[in-house]
């Protein structure tokens, strides 16, 4: 078997740098995911509210996120705001902003779908028991919604983690960029390194995403 070139990872501080890069990816995605989940719950509930202006506004928001590639959003937020308003947002905050902006919209839509899927009789029964709107949502609807949300949101969360590789376009050196740097710096001595290094990157992403899907499976079972 030909050498996979994994040995380049053990030169100097290469492996440490790769892990630092991974941490950058995790940091950006975790902050965005947590913010997206909370804001998404709120936006999702608002999407079910019968208010034309609010509805139209959220529709525009959701469609913007759907249509715009994340890369374009990153460029607009990182370079666009500086160009137009002169704000100097750091690359990290721009990335977190864009990922939260995206995650909140998609999460909100998932929440909306989950709420809509709950039979109307659940609302009516709660009202018949004398609960007000807030109580109905808090005690009856949201717990059921959250359960339905788990598999859906896991897809979104893992996708957000993997999409952080785009932030290299605004100068953030994350795990994939470090991998490219390592491959490139060693192309002469170990031309096969691309395979080995990308394999390791694949494993690193797996190590990050797998516990999340295990946690989801556990929660689904427990709350079923």
């Amino acid at each position, binding site marked *: 078997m030909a050498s996979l070139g994994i040995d380049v990872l053990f030169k*100097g501080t290469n492996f440490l740098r790769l892990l630092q890069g991974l941490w950058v990816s995790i940091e950006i995605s975790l902050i965005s995911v947590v913010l997206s989940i909370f804001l998404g719950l709120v*936006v999702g509930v*608002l999407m079910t509210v019968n208010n034309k202006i609010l509805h139209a506004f959220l529709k525009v928001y959701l469609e913007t996120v759907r249509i715009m590639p994340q890369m374009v959003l990153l*460029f607009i937020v990182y370079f666009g705001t500086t160009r*137009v308003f002169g704000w100097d947002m750091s690359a990290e905050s721009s990335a977190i902003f864009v990922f939260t902006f995206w995650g909140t919209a998609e999460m909100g839509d998932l929440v909306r779908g989950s709420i809509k899927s709950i039979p109307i009789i659940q609302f009516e029964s709660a009202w018949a028991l004398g609960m007000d709107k807030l109580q109905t949502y808090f005690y009856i609807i949201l717990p059921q919604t959250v359960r339905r949300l788990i598999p859906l949101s896991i897809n979104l969360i893992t996708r957000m983690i993997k999409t952080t590789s785009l932030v290299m376009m605004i100068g953030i050196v994350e795990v994939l960029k470090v991998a490219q740097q390592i491959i490139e*710096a060693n192309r002469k001595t170990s031309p096969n390194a691309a395979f080995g290094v990308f394999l390791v990157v694949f494993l690193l992403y797996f190590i990050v995403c797998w516990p999340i899907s295990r946690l989801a499976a556990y929660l689904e079972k427990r709350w079923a």
Partner: protein
Amino acid sequence: MKKNFINKVTGLTLVGALAVSGFTACGASASSSDVAGTDEATVESASSAAGYRTLDEIKESGTINIGVFSDKSPFGFVDENGEYAGYDVYFAERIGEDLGVKINYVSTEAANRIEYLQTGKVDIILANFTVTEERAQEVDFALPYMNVALGVVSPDSAVVESLDDLGADDQIIVISGTTAETYLTKNYPDIKLQKYDAYAEAKTAFENGTGVAWANDNTEVIAFSLENEGYTVGIPSLGDQDTIAPAVTKGNDTLLKWLNEEIETLGTENFFHADYEATLLDTYGADYEDTLVLEGGK
């Protein structure tokens, strides 16, 4: 309700930013042909909002932001100890030394180099930046420090010696935002291009045979064929002979003037030959030294 409000604000801001950036993009291209006083004024305020830093401001802050490639060996790359290195970086180090400031390296991609300068997020781009007319309208180039032309590399088994010989389904690999992409799109619109954002991706794709050839700066493709067995540069020089130069934000005259003087001064001590010998000699050998190196901007 508070979160709703925040959402509204963020949403509105973004939609606003979208609209405004659309307008300014059109505005900028329109006003470059206008010489009317009012247009001058808007351009002025826009550029100061974007905020490039003058030479004095950089010196005062003690740090200069220099945009370099981090995956383009041997011009700009990161070595195994995590330090930036290469031909461009060797020059950047000297700039930092002569200005008496620390250097903050920013890892750039070919496609975002102009954005970085126009928003003032870096002070200088030293990322193998080829001087072209289109780019010169967007940024200010200092004196050149290297020669370059386009080249096309292909596997030994099927060497591409002329772009006219390509089959209808043959794809050529290019990197987005490079002169190779622009040149081929303009002069060979029928050739199918396979575009990549990062150098590492493009080379890996090429090695895996997803395209019949890879077009890029000839320095890149010569280096590639010398480093890798089984590849030949079938077309060593395509299109015009170009130069590579540092670039600064348009209008940043103090920094531009300093850079030009620096390059002229360095010419007297044959700095770029020393740079070549320190960083490029291993890759290109001594034969290409005088072809590639430009001393003192000439």
